[in-house]
């Protein structure tokens, strides 16, 4: 790597690793390195992940399961391919009038009492949300006040902190809030932020980041989780998922009931009625939406859809692609804050619309279709790279093929120069994508740009130049290619074979042919049929 510039591209160094040895080493290494601002090395992350058999087994099992379930419910629909094509077309159409739909959304949402905020970047979004949170606890006089705690490490394990008197924020799962690092921001502002999706809760108390878009704790085994609950929640060690879930239900119920503020993402926001909406399974989103007096939804600009009719089409695709379900357990439409007579639902409802690099992607004809993405995570499950490394190796909030495309867009091409290379370009991501994003083409485009951007001496480029020179001259090629064959076969007579790196550790090299290919080829094509 030529561009060894010192930057911290890993944006979550302290939450980076997962609880097993290989990755813990990677984490330790990263924590040390980030102090001197070393560029993220996705290659070394991948190397570490590949050595971790436990991790690979867990990821393999989970992704196999997801793919099988997805295939089953997709097979029920005879016109799945047409549905994908239609959805892709509808997404593009919505994006081509994105400004109009956002303005409609704002207008209709506002008319129903939802306050709309615009945030250009993560920093602005965090600031807006923190301000809403502070104002709401001050005005409601809930007794709990944010206590600014500079030691973030100490606030990290907050969900188990019984004596806390800080205002409680319950959060349902949202990748967008992970992207802007909202939770650590609010914790620094003195709030107790509780992730309520089970997988998110597990990674939160483990001090990690999610390793999958729809299954955040996919890399952990039931034993890992049992140990974690025993250690952090003081529960008895159990391995049975049913028992583990009832431990989590009990611990989180208390937080749900006491929460002052609820934060959710939005799978979509339907412009024609000003409706932010989300899907979930655990009932945690319903509790986050029902109890706190203040509700905040955070959405990327691309999540706006013009009509209910469009929305229903995506609702056919999303649960099937994400979790292999025909529909999720709950589909929530946050249509308005509570009326005077209502006894539940938020008194104040806010919608934060986030750009954070998305409009920049919109400008790029080769990459803009990435904004079609409905965050189902199906491309992760089929990706031969993700399936072997898990999500943490990507060192960033969005893993897998979608993450490998989004990283250079959101973090910059230099910061995430290796991400587009974490792919075999097999195209399965594109095949499985419910909105037909040409992910493999985009990865290739980004690779091209990474290479073009490199300046200075590159041994790879020098080698490719030499190669090109040789390939342009057939006689030279055939002469040069004869040399190693001659040496290996005629001079050394097979007493020494070249050892190929990596591959050669496990494999013997092939026997050296007595005659070189160019010679063989010209003999064949000249019509000689001596062999008969």
């Amino acid at each position: 790597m030529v561009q060894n510039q010192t930057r911290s591209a890993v944006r979550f160094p302290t939450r980076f690793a997962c609880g097993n040895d290989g990755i813990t080493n990677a984490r330790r290494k990263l924590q040390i390195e980030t102090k001197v601002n070393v560029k993220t090395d996705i290659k070394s992350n991948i190397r570490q992940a590949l050595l971790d058999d436990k991790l690979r087994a867990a990821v393999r099992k989970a992704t196999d399961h997801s793919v099988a379930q997805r295939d089953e419910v997709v097979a029920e629909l005879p016109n799945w391919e047409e549905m994908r094509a239609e959805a892709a077309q509808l997404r593009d159409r919505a994006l081509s009038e994105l400004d109009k739909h956002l303005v409609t959304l704002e207008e209709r949402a506002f008319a129903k009492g939802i306050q709309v905020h615009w945030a250009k970047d993560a920093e602005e979004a965090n600031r807006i949300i923190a301000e809403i949170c502070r104002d709401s606890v001050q005005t409601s006089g809930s007794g709990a006040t944010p206590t600014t705690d500079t030691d973030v490490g100490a606030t990290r394990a907050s969900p188990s902190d019984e004596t806390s008197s800080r205002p409680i924020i319950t959060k349902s799962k949202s990748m967008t809030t992970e992207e802007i690092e909202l939770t650590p921001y609010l914790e620094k502002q003195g709030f107790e932020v509780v992730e309520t999706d089970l997988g998110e809760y597990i990674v939160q108390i483990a001090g990690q980041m999610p390793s999958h878009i729809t299954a955040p704790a996919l890399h952990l085994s039931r034993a890992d989780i049992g140990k974690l609950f025993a250690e952090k929640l003081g529960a008895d060690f159990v391995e049975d998922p049913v028992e583990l879930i009832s431990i989590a239900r009990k611990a989180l119920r208390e937080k749900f009931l006491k929460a002052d503020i609820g934060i959710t993402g939005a799978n979509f926001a339907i412009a024609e009625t000003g409706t932010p909406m989300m899907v979930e399974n655990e009932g945690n989103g319903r509790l986050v939406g029902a109890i706190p007096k203040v509700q905040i939804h955070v959405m990327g600009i691309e999540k706006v859809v013009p009509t209910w009719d469009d929305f229903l089409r995506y609702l056919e695709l999303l649960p099937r692609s994400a979790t292999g379900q025909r529909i999720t357990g709950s589909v929530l439409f946050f249509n308005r804050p509570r009326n005077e007579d209502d006894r539940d639902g938020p008194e104040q409802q806010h919608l934060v619309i986030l750009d954070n690099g998305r409009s920049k992607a919109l400008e790029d004809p080769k990459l803009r279709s990435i904004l079609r993405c409905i965050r189902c995570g199906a491309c992760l499950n089929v990706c031969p790279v993700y399936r072997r490394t898990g999500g943490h190796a990507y060192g960033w909030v969005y893993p897998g093929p979608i993450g490998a495309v989004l990283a250079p867009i959101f973090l910059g091409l230099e910061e995430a120069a290796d991400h587009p290379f974490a792919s075999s370009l097999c195209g399965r991501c594109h095949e499985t994508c419910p909105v037909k994003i040409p992910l493999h083409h985009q990865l290739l485009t980004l690779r091209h740009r990474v290479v073009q951007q490199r300046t200075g001496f590159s041994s790879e480029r020098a080698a490719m130049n030499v190669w090109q020179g040789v390939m342009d001259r057939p006689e030279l090629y055939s002469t040069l290619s004869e040399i190693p064959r001659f040496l290996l076969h005629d001079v050394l007579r097979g007493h020494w074979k070249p050892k190929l790196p990596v591959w050669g550790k496990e494999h013997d090299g092939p026997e050296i042919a007595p005659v070189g290919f160019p010679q063989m080829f010209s003999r064949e094509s000249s019509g000689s049929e001596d062999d008969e």
Partner: protein
Amino acid sequence: MNSINNSRSRDEMLTSIRQGIKDLRLDQSEVITPEKNIHKLSVDELVLKFSEMLASVGGEAHSLAGEGGLQSALSEILSEFKDKTALIPPDPELKETGVVQIIESAGMKVLYSNETPLEQAAEADIGITTAQAGIADTGTMVLFHTSKRGRLAALLPTVHLAILKKDLLFADKFNYLKETVSQGIDIGATPMTWVTGPSLTADIEKVLVRGAHGPRRVIVLLY
């Protein structure tokens, strides 16, 4: 209160979006909608489909003959809940259909979700509500949340029992949307939840477990 607290960012974002899409022309071509082969289903077919799909995700549906059937099925189910607590919203339909009387005569304590403190409401053993529509092809019930139909009774207890009129069943979500809009109902006016079976999670090793933060058991009585 002003809706736009940061109009400068709004303007900059919209400008940047417009810059991004300026070379994009709206795709005027007809969106190719896949053939939807829906023949009109009879009420019985809808009931059957709804029950089958709800059962496939671990819920229970019972098809009953009118209010009489509803009442006798309800007393039977609630016999398991003697001396237990029911959480209900102040929904007039629950009185009109005789549901409240049956709960009381089953020897249960009734808590109204609109006047019970949260902690106490959360201890209730069963939540009983109406549903405002059903979507047959996924076994989904539609719950609107108004002052008379809060969210909590369907959410806090481990058991949720809903009553749903058979003539409020629709073949699929597209059908439901079309009918709702054609009746002049503003689908964006009231908070709404579509619930399909018990709450669930597969976050631990992809093992499906029913009963996460919401109900563990969901019963729909179709009458």
